[in-house]
C-alpha cells in the first residue's frame, strides 16, 4: 500500500503498540538545552535511573546565554544574571555526570541555537526520530526526519527509556506549486500557510510540505518552513529527502562516512511519500500568490501581505474572534485599516531558530549593503544562529556590511526571540523580527512583535517602517 513519508517514519520506529493505538516509539536523537532539561535530569537521578543511550544525546546552551561581552577566561561568570548562570552551569554539570555524543557548551566554537547546531553538525539525519524539550524541534523535519518538541517529563522519559509513549497523528499534505517571486522567501511561504489554515489548523496533524516551490528551497529555507509548523499547531513538519538534503549533509561532523554514507544515502532516497499515498487533509497554495508577509497581531495567524492593511475587527462575524482581534489591536497599538507600510518600527531583530542561518544573514546583508539604519530605529540586532554561522558570515564579510549599516553584530544564541537573556524589548517598543512568535510579551513585557523574513526585517531597518522588499531589487 502506498505510504506517506510520515507513515514510513512512524512505522520504522514503533517498538510496541497498545490496543488503543498508543505506541512505544524509539528515539534516535535527543537534543538537550539548559531550560527544559534540569528537572528531567533531577527526576532521573531521584528515581535511581541511568540514561538508556548516551550516544543519542547532543547538547548545547542557547536560551539564556548572553550575545555580547563574551570572555572565555571568565567562562560562565560572563553570564550576569545569577539564575541564568545557574541553569547553564546545571547543564554543564548534568552532561559531565551523564555524558553525551556531543556537547557544545557556552562559548564553544560550535555552540548555538539547538535547532541550528543539530543539522549543521550532521546530528540530524533523514529517517531519524529527533526530539528536544523545545517546540521548534519541528525544524529538523526538513531532513525527512520525524521530529517534534516534548515536555520535560518526556525528556526524562527519553533519557530513561530511549522511547516515547504516543499515538500517531493524522496526516496533512501542504503543497506549494509554482515559482516564488523575487524577494519572497521560505518565511513568507510559512506565514502565508499559517494565515490560511490558522494557528490551530495543524493541531493533531503531522504536516508534510511538498510541491515544486518547497523542493526548490535550500535546506535553510526548508528548515524555516518546518520550524513554524508548530505555529500552525502541528508538532511535526517534514519534507521528503532529495539531492539537496544529501548535499547539505555530506561531510558534516557527525554525518555518516565512507561505506556508511553510501548505505545511508540509498536509504534516505526512499524517504518520500509514495505515489497515490492518502492524507487526511490536503491544502494547496500557489507560489505566485504569495507576497512578503507581515504579522499585525499577537498570534502568527494574524498576518497580511506587506501591501495590505491592518484588518478591521468590525468585519469579523465570530464574536470570540472579533474580541481577540480587538484585544490584539489594542495590545499592538494599531488602528484598523492602517496600511502596513505606514507602521514605523523601533527595533529590528534578525536571528532565532527560524531565520539565523547563513542564507538568512546573506539575504539581510543584501538589503543592508550600502545603506544605513534609519535614524528613527533605535537598534538593530543581528544574532547568528551558531558559532559556525558567525564565522562563515565573517568570512564573507557580512559582519562588516551590518556594522557599516549601524546594525549590531552579536554572539550566537536564542536572544530576543524569547528574551530570556538581556536582549529584550522595552514596554511599547515595536519590533520587526525574523523570529516565530508574536505573542504578548514574547520579546519583552508589553513589547510589540511583527514577524517578517530577514530581507523584510533589513528593509524595515533601513527605511524605519515596513517596506516591500521588492522595491529594493
Amino acid at each position, binding site marked *: 500500500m502506498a505510504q506517506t513519508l510520515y507513515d514510513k517514519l512512524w512505522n520504522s520506529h514503533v*517498538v*510496541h503498540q*497498545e*490496543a*488503543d493505538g*498508543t505506541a*512505544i516509539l*524509539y528515539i534516535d536523537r535527543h537534543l538537550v538545552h539548559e*531550560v527544559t532539561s534540569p*528537572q528531567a535530569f533531577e527526576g532521573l537521578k531521584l*528515581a535511581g*535511573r541511568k540514561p*538508556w*543511550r548516551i550516544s543519542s544525546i547532543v547538547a548545547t546552551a542557547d*536560551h*539564556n546565554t548572553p550575545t555580547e561581552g563574551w570572555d572565555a577566561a571568565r567562562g560562565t561568570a560572563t553570564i550576569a544574571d545569577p*539564575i*541564568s548562570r*545557574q*541553569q547553564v552551569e*546545571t547543564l554543564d554539570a548534568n552532561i559531565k555526570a551523564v555524558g553525551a555524543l556531543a556537547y557544545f557548551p557556552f562559548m564553544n566554537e560550535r555552540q548555538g541555537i539547538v535547532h541550528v547546531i543539530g543539522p549543521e553538525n550532521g546530528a540530524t*539525519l533523514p529517517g531519524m526520530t529527533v526530539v528536544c*524539550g*523545545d*517546540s521548534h*524541534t519541528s525544524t529538523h523535519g526538513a531532513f525527512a526526519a520525524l521530529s517534534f*518538541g*516534548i*515536555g520535560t*517529563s*518526556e525528556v526524562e*522519559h527519553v533519557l530513561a*527509556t*530511549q522511547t516515547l*509513549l504516543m499515538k500517531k*497523528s493524522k496526516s496533512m499534505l501542504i503543497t506549494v506549486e509554482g515559482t516564488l517571486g523575487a524577494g519572497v522567501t521560505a518565511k513568507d511561504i510559512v506565514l502565508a500557510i499559517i494565515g490560511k489554515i490558522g*494557528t*490551530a489548523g495543524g*493541531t*493533531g496533524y503531522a504536516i508534510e510540505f511538498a510541491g515544486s516551490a518547497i523542493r526548490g528551497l535550500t535546506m535553510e529555507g526548508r528548515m524555516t518552513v518546518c520550524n513554524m509548523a*508548530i505555529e500552525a*499547531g*502541528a*508538532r511535526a513538519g517534514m519534507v521528503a529527502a532529495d539531492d539537496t538534503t544529501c548535499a547539505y549533509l555530506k561531510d558534516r561532523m*557527525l554525518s*555518516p562516512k565512507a561505506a*556508511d*554514507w553510501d*548505505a*545511508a544515502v540509498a536509504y534516505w532516497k526512499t524517504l518520500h511519500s509514495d505515489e497515490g499515498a492518502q492524507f487526511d487533509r490536503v491544502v494547496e497554495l500557489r507560489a505566485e500568490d504569495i507576497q512578503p508577509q507581515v504579522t499585525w497581531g499577537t*498570534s502568527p495567524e494574524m498576518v497580511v501581505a506587506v501591501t495590505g492593511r491592518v484588518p478591521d475587527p468590525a468585519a469579523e462575524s465570530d464574536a*470570540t*474572534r472579533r474580541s*481577540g482581534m480587538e484585544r490584539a489591536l489594542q495590545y499592538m497599538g494599531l488602528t484598523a485599516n492602517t496600511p502596513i507600510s505606514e507602521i514605523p518600527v523601533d527595533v529590528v531583530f534578525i536571528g532565532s531558530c527560524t531565520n539565523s542561518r547563513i542564507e538568512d544573514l546573506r539575504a539581510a546583508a543584501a538589503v543592508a549593503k550600502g545603506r544605513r539604519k534609519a535614524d528613527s530605529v533605535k537598534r538593530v540586532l543581528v544574532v547568528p544562529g551558531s558559532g559556525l554561522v558567525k564565522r562563515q558570515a565573517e568570512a564573507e564579510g557580512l559582519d562588516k556590511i551590518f556594522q557599516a549599516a549601524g546594525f549590531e553584530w552579536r554572539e550566537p544564541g536564542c536572544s530576543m526571540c524569547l528574551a*530570556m537573556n538581556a536582549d529584550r524589548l522595552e514596554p511599547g517598543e515595536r519590533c520587526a523580527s525574523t523570529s516565530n*512568535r508574536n*505573542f*504578548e*510579551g514574547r520579546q519583552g*513585557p508589553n513589547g510589540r512583535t511583527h514577524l517578517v523574513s530577514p530581507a523584510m526585517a533589513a528593509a524595515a531597518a533601513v527605511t524605519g517602517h515596513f517596506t516591500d522588499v521588492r522595491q529594493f531589487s
Partner: protein
Amino acid sequence: MQAFTLLDGLVAPLDRSNVDTDAIIPKQFLKSIKRSGFGPNCFDEWRYLDHGEPGMDCSQRPKNPDFVLNQPRYAGAEILLVRANFGCGSSREHAPWALLDMGFKAILGESYADIFFNNCFKNGILPIVLPKAELDELFAQVDAAPGYKLVIDLAAQTVTRPDGKAIPFPIDPFRKECLLNGWDDIGLTLRHADEISAFEAKRRVEQPWLFA
C-alpha cells in the same frame, strides 16, 4: 503522579482563544531548575500591574483588578474553563506546573495545543475537550452563579452541572487508565525494556550510522 478520579471543584472562566504558554508562564520564570513554585507567577503579565521577576514576593505586588482570575469569587478554583487552542506555543512544561501550583486540576476547553495537552496528562491535570455549544452554556452559567461548581467523574467520563445535566467527554483509554491509577509512564515503559533492547539491536545492524 497524583491519581485523578473524581473532582468536585469551583470553576473559573478565561474567555479567550489561543492562550499561549508564554502567557501562562512568562519566560523569566523558566530559569528555575525546580518543578514547583510557579503558581504565584501563573498568568503573571495579566495578573499583576507591575513587571514580575523571579524571587519577588507576589503577595506584595499590585494585582490587576480587570483580570478575571483575580476576582475573589474565583479564589480556590480547581477547574479552568477556556476556549480554543489553549496552551499553544512553547513546549514548556512549566505551564502545566504553574496551573497545577495555582490549584487547577482540570481544564474544560474546545481544543488544546498538542504538546500542552500531552504535558497535562504527565502531571495529573485532566484537559477535557467539549463542544463549543456546551462551553458557551458553561461560560454563561459560571458568570451568572457565584460559587459555581462542576463534578468531573473520570471513570464515567462525565462533567455534571449543578442543574444535573451530565456532559460526556472523550478520552484515550490508555491515558484514562494512567490518570485513574496515577501511574508513572517511565515505569510502564520499562516493562517493555527487553523489546526496546531488541528493537535497538536490530536497528544497529540495519542503520549502523545512527549508532556511530
